[in-house]
């Protein structure tokens, strides 16, 4: 039962999920402004994609399919909530494209930051996201001020290395499949 085929597929779905889940949530959340419902919608889109369209392997095509499924489910959700008229007035093609663009940019930056090693990430978060000074960070994390400085430099260095085109990730995925 535990065939090699289902195993590699599962692995492939997980990679897609890791890459796209949060940005799709953000996209849905922008449309319906309800984070719990947004998560439900995105989860259902992943399940549906996998059951019906797993034959599509081109990453941009998969992404677009998921965005479209999520968008349609969001519009349905709003219809259910009977606020569709209100939304329809603001919903234009331009707004939709803006929502995709935002989800893509923030999603990619989040992924880059989240994949930093833990020590680095904490320093980066406190300094760049929460605006603490070096000494405050040192006190907060109970480390020396010099460690804070090195971790900051390292975070920026790593961030550059990690923002590779997603195509690279998918390439790795396709190569690694051979070993399952």
């Amino acid at each position, binding site marked *: *039962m535990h065939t090699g085929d289902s195993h590699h597929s599962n692995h492939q779905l997980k990679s897609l999920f890791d890459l796209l889940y*949060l940005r799709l949530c953000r996209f849905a959340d922008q449309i319906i402004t309800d984070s719990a419902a947004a998560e439900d919608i995105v*989860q259902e889109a992943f399940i549906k994609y996998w059951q019906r369209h797993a034959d599509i392997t081109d990453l941009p095509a998969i*992404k677009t399919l998921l965005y*479209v499924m999520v968008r349609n489910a969001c519009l349905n959700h709003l219809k259910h909530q009977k606020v569709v008229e209100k939304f329809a007035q603001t919903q234009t093609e331009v707004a939709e494209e803006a929502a995709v663009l*935002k989800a893509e940019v923030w999603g990619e930056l*989040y992924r*880059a930051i989240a994949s930093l090693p833990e020590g680095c990430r904490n320093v980066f978060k406190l300094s760049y996201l929460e605006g603490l000074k070096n000494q405050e960070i040192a006190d907060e*994390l*109970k480390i020396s001020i010099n460690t804070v400085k090195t971790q900051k430099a390292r975070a920026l260095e790593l961030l550059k290395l990690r923002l590779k085109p997603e195509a690279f990730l998918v390439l790795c995925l396709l190569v690694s499949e051979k070993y399952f």
Partner: protein
Amino acid sequence: MESYNHLYHTSRLIVKYWDNTLSEEERVALETWIAASEVNRLLFEELSKEEMLKEEMREMGKYHPQRAWDRIEGEVMVKRMIPWGRVAAAMALIILAIGAKWWYTDRTEPLVPVIAKTQQTKGQPVLIMGNGKEVVLQSTTDTLLTEQGGTEIRQQGNKLAYKDAGGPLVYNTLQIPRGMDYSLTLSDGTQVWLNAESSLRFPVHFTENNRKVYLTGEAYFVVAADAAKPFSVTAGQMEVAVLGTAFNLMAYENEPAIQTALVSGSVKIKTGGKETLLQPGWVGVTSNGHTTKQQMDIAALTGWKRGMFVFRNDDMSTVLHQLERWYDVTAVYPTGKAGNPHFTGAIKRYDNIEQVLEMLNQTGGASFKLSGRQINVAF
């Protein structure tokens, strides 16, 4: 079908802008895009603002990817397994050789901590205080206790929290019965989630230059950083030394080995004078005073904390032990028999054991029958 490819291209340019890695050609392309319309200009302004980055990172952090993945994995696999279930019934021999599998869906939010319902009344968690007094903790009423030296102990639902007030070295012991899990905040801010049938002995206030606690059973620790006072957990003859980290320690006496699964940070396992250093994603497996390192699915090992049973090619005794602890039942099954089925999958820790046994039966790998508080297994 619609295409968003031009958007993916633009987003890549903006990410590179953040990253400061735009080539000359790309910079021109981005500037051209910005200049193409007022809408584009406003969008870029928003997408390049540090304030917005901060806000968006916070927003993105509030979703629950692990919970989401549990659900997707369960649902995708159960659909895949339905036709297989029928084939399996006809090919029982093959299944026993390869191992049975079952999956189920986590459709609802896991309730953690949670209490399993069985027919009879269950044990209650007990706190043994410094003077030896035993306090039965009722989840329905909130309690405020005070230890020697003034340490406040606040109990709310299935949670216990210590507030440091200095004082002498006094130990408390928290005993969790079968059928529930519990969360505890120590006086230094370290968080501990105790699984069913587990107990932890710990000082109400950490006095000296170390923080030592003692575990039987299973717990997940998120240790508060304090380089001056190393934290350590002792389980039987083994000790885990930590400095600010998250890990799961499974040390039930009826399991063949102790497992230390490191989620983040670093820990050192000390057994029989030897030390083993773990990296995140690795599990230290200790048996007969000897520790080896293995790479395992950490999210599976910590599934109980999310209200799930998660199995990864686990044998019958591992599966049944978990049911025994959660539903306070006894399992009777053939041991030492060839073809012991193995299980892989995720399932919610249901209120009701019948639902779980029903799913196990559907795998066709073995039959599970409940009579009173005993599970009879045949395969």
